[in-house]
């Protein structure tokens, strides 16, 4: 019973914080709320018997990526986000690009609902499902990552490398020595 209670508490924090991330005018608060949401997600992973995934979530998302976000927000020094002109007009009179965005959002909601409805085993506790124990073990995770999913793994690392090189190229000013 306490586990169910903790699950609902963590879920509420995760969903509530995520909703507030979008609602904030101050980007600094958005970043912090996103960190809180990641923390709640890590708690949910622990409940799923996957401590390694939980810790990786904290290290990579809350510890590394969000620090970079914070860094950028501080450097840009944008204390308040002003609402765009079209934000105050009637939804139907907004420019095409804004309407396209809401279309995409609607599509995402439909997709999520479809995924949730068609997923199997969602009504059973995770412990009963096959393979749940394997996710928790670092050894099993590492083996699977470097054998079955090695192509996806290497492709991802190449993608990140490309993004990194691209950032360096873009950040270098014209005519400056490399």
């Amino acid at each position, binding site marked *: 019973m306490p586990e169910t209670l903790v699950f609902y508490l963590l879920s509420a924090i995760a969903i509530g914080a995520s909703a507030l991330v979008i609602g904030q005018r101050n980007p*600094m608060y958005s970043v*912090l709320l996103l*960190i809180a949401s990641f923390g709640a997600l890590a708690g949910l992973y622990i409940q799923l018997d996957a*401590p*390694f995934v939980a*810790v*990786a979530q*904290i*290290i990579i998302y*809350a*510890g*590394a990526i969000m*620090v*970079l976000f*914070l*860094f950028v927000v*501080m*450097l840009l020094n944008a204390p308040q986000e002003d609402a765009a002109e079209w934000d105050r007009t009637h939804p139907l009179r907004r420019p095409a690009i804004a309407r396209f965005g809401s279309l995409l959002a609607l599509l995402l909601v439909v997709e999520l609902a479809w995924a949730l409805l068609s997923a199997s085993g969602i009504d059973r506790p995770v412990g009963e499902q096959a393979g749940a124990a394997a996710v928790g073990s*670092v050894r099993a995770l590492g083996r699977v990552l470097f054998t079955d999913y090695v192509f996806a793994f290497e492709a991802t690392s190449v993608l990140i490398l490309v993004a990194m090189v691209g950032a360096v190229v873009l950040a270098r000013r014209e005519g400056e020595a490399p």
Partner: protein
Amino acid sequence: MDLRLLVQLGIIGFTFFMLINASALLVYAERKVMGFMQQRYGPYRVGPHGLLQPLADILKLLMKEELTPKGADRWLFTLAPILAVTAAFAAFATVPWGAETTLFSLLDEPVKLGAADVNVGVLVVFAITSMGVYGIVLAGWSSNSKYSLLGGLRSSAQMISYELSYATALSAVILLAGSLSLRETVDAQAGYWLGVIPRWYVFVQPVGFLIYMIAAIAETNRAPFDFPEAEQELVAGYNTEYSSVRFALFPQAEYINMTTAAAVATDLYLGGWHGPFLPPAYGWVWFLLKVGAILFAYIWVRWTVPRYRYDQLMQFGWKWLFPASVINLIVTAALVLYFNA
């Protein structure tokens, strides 16, 4: 409530209490050691040999007026020191500090000395330590002061840079021990080579230990890497606008982070509570001695080496320390593979 739970709660409370004491003792030790290195006495008027000086300092800080700058972000200004000190305490949660014991045959089953025993302990310590940067960054930003902001910015850049070397140095030890649990890593270091040399990983990983210590000094913002609070340039850095208890929490977080870094170094490289002469039940004495020695080295370095320049710090971190730690990791991995196959 059964006895086992009570004992575990007692151990957690004791760990917490000792961490608070550690920060107070370190304030005293720092001033005393600095005094001796500069050929003077350091504090000696309050209590015998100035031993009550930390108490007087704490009392003074509690009595001071608490100020908040007018342009500060009130919420984050209050949240920042709380975050810093919470992360510092929480990081110690999975650090074991003694062998399994029955508390002098008081209990039927042995208990593990340490607040919590997690099978991914090393990673938990690393994860929570990396959260500590938020306290400093937020303090710098929410103060709405140039000096504080620059201090906070420098700190986040520095911590991101040195976290990499720190984690890579840790990975080499994880490879050797074949486990992410700190307790198992310590127990893998029991015994002796050739009957005399303790099986501590520091003898297998001398480069890794050096990298770990340098990165740990940078992670805890200590001299010679104390850029977030370089007083000649930034007044006091990220904590310039703080006063009273809210100010006191930052040095406390720093000292507790130092203690955690020293305790993790002891567990990973110096064999934890394993040592000659003492029976296993008194292993925690060895643990305390080793942690104390590392902390003394910390203070020793601070009052010996002058501060780096900021660009030198970044150069050193990215161009020397990180490549060295990667090479160390690759060589270790190759050797582990060779000897295990």
